[in-house]
């Protein structure tokens, strides 16, 4: 499901529960994300893409719940593990796939790749290759929103590991003292590459860090799309009401390795299995009382959309080397 049409519908939606139709659309987006990333992995294995990529398989509910609670006027600052948020924001799978394959038709004309997909026209200010790189920028977007006096908010997405960078602390403090409309969305997938959260900080909840800066902090089950939706919705309402930023921690888990070169020596198969048993897609499908056939056919629809995206990307031209110097300066 893409973002709601405007702030009003989004606010109204939170008063009532999400409708079955909305949840059904959300489930479809989660499936689309999963199939996109599985396909990305295939293409990489076939040697059709180079570089590396960071898959968010297992974390789909966080992306879809969060974007679902925002409007088309809001801003997104995304992470390196950003395919899911990008699709949840309503981006086109074909233009993303073309970017992923380095094609001229891609969102960034093949210059950015998996780690840097942006869609500036849709206020998606891009994924970021630098851990915590989006946080200071979110402060500036917040200032800009206030200066322009609009009803927008900015959501910046980052990982548990990012919350150990100085940029996290500096940015939240600034957003707090200036009461900016920023939603700090921390995807706690329990690891920063090989570093488990327990070893990288002496607190139980990352959201506890909010208290140090005098802002609201909440922790939610990141595999529960409705819980994420609700938390982001509330944060948005607070932000537009001038009540300042919120730090939301979504507990979730990545099923795949950190990137393409990860042997995963730092965790056990059992641990991965435990989380797979809490799969966000299975869970939502279960809540919706879907039969296996219904589920399969929805997955099939997602697969078809991804297949079309790949066809588009493969048929697209490579960037022309003659244009290599373009785009450095405005």
């Amino acid at each position, binding site marked *: 499901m893409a973002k709601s049409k405007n702030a009003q519908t989004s606010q109204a939606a939170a008063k009532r529960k999400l409708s079955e139709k909305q949840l059904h659309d959300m489930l479809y987006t989660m499936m689309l994300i999963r199939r996109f990333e599985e396909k990305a992995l295939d293409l990489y294995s076939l040697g059709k893409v180079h*570089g590396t990529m960071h898959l968010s398989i297992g974390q789909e509910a966080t992306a879809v719940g969060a974007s679902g609670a925002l409007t088309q006027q809001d801003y997104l600052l995304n992470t390196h593990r950003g395919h899911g948020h990008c699709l949840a924001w309503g981006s086109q799978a074909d233009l993303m796939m073309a970017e992923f394959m380095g094609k001229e038709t891609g969102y960034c004309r093949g210059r950015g790749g998996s780690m840097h997909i942006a869609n500036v026209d849709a206020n998606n200010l891009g994924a970021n290759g630098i851990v915590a790189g989006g946080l200071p920028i979110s402060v500036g977007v917040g200032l800009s929103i206030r200066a322009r006096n609009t009803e927008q908010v900015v959501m910046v997405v980052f990982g548990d590991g990012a919350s150990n*960078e100085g940029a996290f602390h500096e940015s939240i403090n600034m957003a707090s003292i200036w009461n900016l409309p920023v939603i700090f969305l921390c995807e706690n997938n329990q690891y920063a590459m090989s570093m488990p959260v327990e070893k*990288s900080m002496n607190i139980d909840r990352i959201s506890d860090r909010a208290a140090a800066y005098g802002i609201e902090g909440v922790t939610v089950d990141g595999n529960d799309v409705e819980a994420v939706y609700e938390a982001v919705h509330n944060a948005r309402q607070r932000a537009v009401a001038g009540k300042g930023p919120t730090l939301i921690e979504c507990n979730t888990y990545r099923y795949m390795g950190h990137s393409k070169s990860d042997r995963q020596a730092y965790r056990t198969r059992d641990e991965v299995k435990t989380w797979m048993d809490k799969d966000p897609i299975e869970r939502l499908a279960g809540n919706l009382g879907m039969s296996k056939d219904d589920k399969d056919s929805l997955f099939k629809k997602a697969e078809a959309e991804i297949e079309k995206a790949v066809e588009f990307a493969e048929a697209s031209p490579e*960037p022309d080397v003659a244009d290599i110097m373009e785009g450095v300066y405005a």
Partner: protein
Amino acid sequence: MPSANGTREITYVEAVREALTQSMQADERVFLIGEDIGVYGGAFGVSAGMHAQFGGERVIDTPISEAAIVGACVGAALTGMRPVGEIQFMDFITLGMEQLVLQAAKVRFMFGGKATVPMVLRTPGGSGTGAAAQHSESLETWFTHVPGLKVVMPSSPYDAKGLLMAAIQDENPVIFVEHKLLYKVSGPVPEEPYTIPLGEPNIVREGKHLTVVATSIMVQRAKQAAEELAKEGVEIEIVDPRTLNPFDDALMIQSVVKTGKALVVHEAVKTSGYGAELVSRIVESEAFDYLEAPVRRLAGLDIPIPYNRNLEYHAVPQVENIVAEARKLVRGDY
């Protein structure tokens, strides 16, 4: 098979690991600190197995906090330890710049020479892996511009081991720039510990028609270019500074006096790159009187590294570019 003196073929990554291991065995003060260097073995596998061998007290995994990694090295070095920090990609050194440039490089001088900061910061630079603009930087010249820092850039497994052991024994902060594409390159390396003095260049290949001064991966590409050119009867001499700062330029200048022509090659972008320093050193020296052609630079284009494979390839000098440029210089096309 090891030869009589214990020299065998190992890769660059193995050479770096061997230098770290032998330095830690020889000196208890040496320890490693960085992101994912423990059980994971480092993003490029440099410290694979070292956590098991030396334990978590000497192979320290950190949170993602580059400023504090660099600062921790400074503090430990100031108080009697010999830290070797790893910055996972050279790009992320930008987050540790203050501690490196304003602390590590300056405290000795500011304290009237009464403090020493014997630390090494290792980091892989360079493009060619499809990692795009924020994971492919070549920033070495930022550091050569800071008095108090030494900057080392090994181009072979042999140099990597000897220079790293020397860097760890050095009393100053040293930035040790590895290259991602060199990690898998093999070459002869003695088993026993040895050092290569920081500051000494290496004549990688002798030749009489043209001096090519190259750094890091470009030394490997220049060697390949030399083979092509030799088929045409063109013999290039390849000089590798190995240490960018301090750099004893005497060998390079002698070489240019001999050949009368010079081409400087590096991967970092051309504008204000290390090549500007090398060219200046040549034209400021007695070699000026022997020059038969303009001194030329071949360097990365003045753009961030693009993601697309083809664009990425064309963003930095390749073997064929070195061949073409050398040919022109030797033929007098400039």
